[in-house]
């Protein structure tokens, strides 16, 4: 019987388990989890602090998930992959034999070497459930919170704690919020919404030095705080793979079948650098849907099936205080941009070569998935339909024949 080992216990791991089981109902699956938790939805930690979910509801899969899938769950830390003997060595000396192993190790917070950071007592990353629970304990209704990093993690953290602290300041070296997914105008729009809910920003500025409860900014400003959240960025966890001889760039390099260049080692999720069809090259796409899809794809291949993923694209749905934002694809500088502003938001479509390369929607995100599918499938849009695409996402952008297939058949 096949021995499958999955290192990690997040979304990619859950996908991997379900992928294996869709193909091989019998083989032994062992999951090595560094966190002592049932698989949970990592992006939900901000919602946990906000009170929109709880520990029970944020479980990514039901309580009987491991049992039903006949998975052995081990809490521990994988230290080394012995490729010669096909064994994963755990801290403490335990070794687990594998036929196929999948690395779903995710990423960890990247903390720049700030001067004086060690003098700060209440400082937290914001990645894991334990991070969130620890942060929660430190918060009081009067807390002044400084969040370093105005990306997805930092801002979701801000939203999550907004109602339960005295003040929040977010700083970022970038000149705008959500710089990885939004352009300046869209970012400014989102920033206004956050500011309207009491979050203040110091952008194009960052802390250069900390001293206990004070941050000294590059601009010369000084920010007093009680609690510090470090959300500067993340780094793929690639140590195990590197040791095992896998090629590693920003993440563990995988092909479209999620295989690394070392036999029987697969990787999926935030730790991996897979093919991004929007740029036609490998890239770490640290988004949850991608983690699941990669994990599932890896699982199927590990179990002897055949799956690949060639259409991964960056995409994000994120909202703050009820203002939603959906983005996907790439934003080529030499393409055509179609913009529409309404009272409640912005719509920007980026066309290139007769295709929709990417989009940003703020406010009205209804049926955004239709745009996403155009980007993902790189659909060539006929001249006669281009105006309809620009109008709003609907199935009217397809010919009647295609639409009839979509709505009149099993898809």
């Amino acid at each position, binding site marked *: 019987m096949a021995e499958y080992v999955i290192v990690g216990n997040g979304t990619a791991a*859950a*996908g991997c388990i379900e992928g294996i089981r869709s193909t091989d109902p019998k083989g032994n699956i062992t999951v090595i989890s560094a966190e002592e938790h049932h698989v949970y*939805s990592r*992006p*939900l930690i901000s*919602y946990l602090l906000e009170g*929109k*979910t709880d520990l029970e*509801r*944020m*479980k*990514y*899969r039901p309580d009987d998930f491991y049992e039903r899938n006949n998975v052995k769950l081990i809490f521990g830390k994988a230290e080394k992959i012995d490729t010669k003997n096909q064994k994963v060595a755990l801290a403490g000396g335990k070794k687990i034999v594998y036929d196929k192993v999948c690395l779903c190790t995710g990423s960890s917070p990247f903390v720049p070497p700030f001067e004086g950071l060690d003098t700060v007592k209440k400082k937290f990353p914001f990645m894991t459930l334990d991070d969130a629970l620890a942060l929660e304990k430190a918060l009081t209704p009067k807390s002044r919170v400084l969040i370093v990093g105005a990306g997805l993690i930092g801002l979701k953290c801000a939203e999550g704690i907004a109602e339960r602290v005295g003040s929040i300041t977010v700083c970022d070296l970038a000149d705008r919020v959500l710089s990885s997914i939004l352009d300046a105008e869209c970012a400014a729009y989102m920033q206004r919404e956050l500011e309207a809910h009491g979050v203040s920003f110091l952008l194009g500025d960052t802390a250069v030095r900390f001293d206990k409860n004070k941050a000294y900014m590059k601009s010369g400003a000084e920010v007093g705080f009680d609690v510090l959240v470090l959300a500067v960025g993340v780094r793929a966890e690639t140590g195990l793979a590197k040791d095992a001889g896998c090629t590693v760039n920003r993440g563990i390099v995988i092909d479209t079948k999620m295989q690394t260049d070392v036999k029987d080692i697969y990787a999926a999720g935030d730790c991996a650098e897979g093919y991004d069809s929007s740029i036609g090259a490998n890239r770490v796409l640290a988004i*949850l*849907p991608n983690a*699941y*899809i990669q994990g*599932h794809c890896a699982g199927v291949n590990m179990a002897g099936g055949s799956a690949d993923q060639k259409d991964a694209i960056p*995409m*994000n*749905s*994120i*909202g703050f205080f*009820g203002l*939603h934002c*959906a983005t*996907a694809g790439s934003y080529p500088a030499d393409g055509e941009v179609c913009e529409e502003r309404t009272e409640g938001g912005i719509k920007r479509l980026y066309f290139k070569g007769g295709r929709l390369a990417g989009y940003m929607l703020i406010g009205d*995100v*209804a*049926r*955004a*998935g*239709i745009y*996403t*599918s155009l980007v993902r499938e790189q659909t060539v849009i006929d001249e006669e339909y281009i105006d*309809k695409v620009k109008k709003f*996402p*609907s*199935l*009217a952008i397809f010919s*009647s024949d295609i*639409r*009839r297939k*979509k*709505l*009149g*058949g*099993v*898809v």
Partner: protein
Amino acid sequence: MKRVYVNEEWCLGCHLCEYNCAFANSGLNDMVKALKGKPIFPRVHIEEDDGITYAVSCRHCKDPLCVKSCIAGAISVVDGTVKIDRNKCVGCLTCVLVCPYGAVAPGPSGAAQKCELCLENSCGAPACVTGCPNNAIVYEER
């Protein structure tokens, strides 16, 4: 598996499906009580374009992107039917971001909702289908 299919040829664009859907999922026993003077949140919507109209609702895909993409693990496939656990949903709308049919939308509470074939309410058969005056929406095996 029986699914809801749309015969564009016969859709009149009357929008009755939307109202029947909103009523069916209201939990109330009178349409007036359920819908009068309120915004409605149907799980089927009519798209109109150049005189062509058609209803769109969840296709219950064989390989659903929404299930794979849900950040809360709130969407699952139960006996072929794609279902949203509204209790788990946090309203991030990633499902809206990925659904290629535009068939998922936020409901009144902000949680995502979509057609679940009226299996959970008291209708017995999809209300959009039984209420369609022209068989433009059908519930059948294909």
